């Protein structure tokens, strides 16, 4: 679980616009579900010592396909976080589980959806506080034909706070958000 959280935090820190967050979420869900189906299906035939490389290769193949599609159709998104997309394959958390396909798929979907919802919520807050805008369509405007970037609050002295979209501010915001989430859940599952 700790490995999963370590990798998942990377994207919370990295992404700055809501559009990139939902595009990444789609990639993440597709990768997680597809790789989970394939890994669970072939687990019986794989020798336990080489389960990690095999899981990595399967996830890596799916990510390469997604990366090539994104590079061709959404170049803006690829320029923003394209270098970090292959790192998604390091989220190897189910290589040693012995669950059935159905159970494993439900667990993965639950985990992935929890993460995606946290990601979307946090990036939305980060973007509103950091730049006072919400970007719905900018990188994908060459596909949809629309650009949708909305200003949220009227001019004021407090917002935007550029600190929150810098790297130091991102660390602090994510740390605060995780602390608050622990508080709401009641306890610390470190």
């Amino acid at each position, binding site marked *: 679980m700790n490995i999963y959280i370590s990798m998942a935090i990377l994207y919370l820190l990295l992404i700055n616009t809501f559009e990139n967050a939902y595009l990444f979420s789609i990639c993440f869900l597709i990768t997680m579900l597809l790789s989970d189906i394939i890994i669970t299906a072939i687990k019986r035939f794989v020798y336990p010592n080489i389960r990690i490389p095999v899981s990595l290769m399967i996830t*890596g193949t799916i990510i390469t396909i997604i990366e090539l599609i994104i590079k061709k159709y959404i170049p803006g998104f690829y320029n923003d976080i394209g270098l970090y997309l292959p790192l998604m394959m*390091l989220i190897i958390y189910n290589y040693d589980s012995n669950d059935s396909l159905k159970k494993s798929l439900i667990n993965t979907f639950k985990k992935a959806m929890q993460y995606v919802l946290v990601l979307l919520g946090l990036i939305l807050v980060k973007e509103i506080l950091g730049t006072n805008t919400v970007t719905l369509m900018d990188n994908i405007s060459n596909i949809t034909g629309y650009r949708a970037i909305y200003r949220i609050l009227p001019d004021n002295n407090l917002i935007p706070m550029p600190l929150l979209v810098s790297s130091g501010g991102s660390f602090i915001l994510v740390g605060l958000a995780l*602390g608050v989430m622990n508080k709401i859940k009641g306890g610390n599952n470190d």
Partner: protein
Amino acid sequence: MIDLFIGSIFLSNVLLTKYLGIRIDKDKSLTVTILISIITIISSIVNYFVYSLLLKLNAIYLRNLIFILDIVIVSSIVLMIYKLITNNEDDILPVVVSNSLILGVSLFVTSSGYDLINTIVYTIGSSVGYILVMFLFYYMDKELSKRKVLVSFKGYPIMLITLGILCMVLERL
């Protein structure tokens, strides 16, 4: 070259500016950090040669798969030697392989188009920077464990806030 080395340690520290290598596990030993750094250096150099070969063969789309395979092989060899020397039987391969520093540095170096010497300098600088930040963090973590911290903020939330403050300090250098 010296600019690149100093810059990769402080100003463009891989952990603080590129977010690579964030490691949250209960085993906070520095041995794993040093092992990860050694594997980063070796695998980046291996990946540099592999990437040049892929460029010649016009097969860059295989980059991710070949890189991760290299990393698993290099990690296995280094950990095997480590186990032989120290007689440590813990299985730390998943922790090492799933660290984003190793793959991230390889990807960054190859996409920046560095030559061999710059690759070696940048990788060593990044590893030194990573060890430095982790050292700083471990001592801060020890200090923080003596102080009163909110229960919900113990562990990785306070680690991230500490890293944020560190990051802001290094940004102003």
